[in-house]
C-alpha cells in the first residue's frame, strides 16, 4: 500500500530566506555534517574512527533528505514542502543537527539559558545572528510539527 505523503505549507516570504540560509549548512559532508562532537572516551581506540564516520554519515544522509524536501521550485514558489512519512525521522534528526551546528557556529554569543528559555534580545544581535536565531527557532517549530504527527499521544 502506498503511504500518504505529507505536505507543509509555509509562508515562503518568511521561511524562504531561512531555508536559503540553512541549505549550505545542510549540504556539508564528512565531519562537517556532525551536529556535535561525539564523546568516544570509553570506546576502544581501534573503533573510534569507524564510529565517528558512521555518525557523520548518518547525519549527512539526514541533512541531504532535509535539503531535498526544501530545495525545490515548488517550495520557492508556493512554500509547499512535501515529503513521505519515512522522511519524518531523518527530518527530525537533520533539524536537530542543524540547530546544533547553528548554536556552535553562529550563536556562540548567546548563553545556554537564553537559548533554553527562548529569552532572546534581538536588539543586541547583529544581522547574521538574527537570521541564525530565526532559523534556529523555525527548526524547532518544524520539529514540534513533525513530533506531533509522529506521536500524537505525547504531551509537552
Amino acid at each position, binding site marked *: 500500500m502506498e503511504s500518504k505523503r505529507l505536505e507543509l505549507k509555509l509562508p515562503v516570504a518568511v521561511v524562504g530566506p531561512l531555508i536559503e540560509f540553512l541549505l549550505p549548512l545542510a549540504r556539508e559532508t564528512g565531519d562537517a555534517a556532525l551536529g556535535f562532537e561525539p564523546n568516544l572516551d570509553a570506546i576502544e581506540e581501534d573503533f573510534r574512527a*569507524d564510529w565517528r564516520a558512521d555518525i557523520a554519515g548518518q547525519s549527512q544522509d539526514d541533512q541531504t533528505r532535509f535539503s531535498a524536501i526544501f530545495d525545490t521550485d515548488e517550495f520557492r514558489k508556493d512554500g509547499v514542502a512535501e515529503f513521505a512519512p519515512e522522511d519524518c525521522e531523518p527530518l*527530525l534528526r537533520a533539524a536537530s543537527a542543524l540547530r546544533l551546528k547553528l548554536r556552535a557556529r553562529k550563536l556562540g554569543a548567546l548563553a545556554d539559558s537564553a537559548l533554553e528559555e527562548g529569552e532572546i534580545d534581538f536588539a543586541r544581535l547583529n544581522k547574521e545572528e538574527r537570521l541564525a536565531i530565526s532559523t534556529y527557532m523555525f527548526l524547532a517549530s518544524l520539529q514540534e510539527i513533525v*513530533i506531533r504527527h509522529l506521536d500524537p499521544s505525547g504531551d*509537552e
Partner: protein
Amino acid sequence: MSVAAPKTKRKSATRKKTVPQPTSPWMVVVLNDPVNLMSYVVLVFKKVLGFTEAKARKHMLEVHKKGRSVVWTGERERAEAYAQTLQSWQLSAQIEHSSDGK
C-alpha cells in the same frame, strides 16, 4: 523490561577481544544540552530505548534538571549500540563503566 533492539551501523563486527571485558555493567548516559527540545528527547527515548511515555519523560526531566541520566545498563556491546544510535539522533550520549563511580 522489553527494549527495542538497538540499531547500529557499525561496520566493525569483528571486534578484537584482546582485553578481557569487565563483567559488571556498562551504563548509557545522556547529558543535557541546551539545544534539543524536551519533546524531541522524549520521542527519541521512546523510539530508541522502547520507553513508555512516562519513563521517557522521567529520564528527560532528569537530564534537564540534573544534567545527566543513566538510560540503560547492561553489557558493553549493547550499551555501545544504544549510545551510537542516540548519538545519531544528535543526543549527547556516552557509555561509562559502573565502576567509574559517577
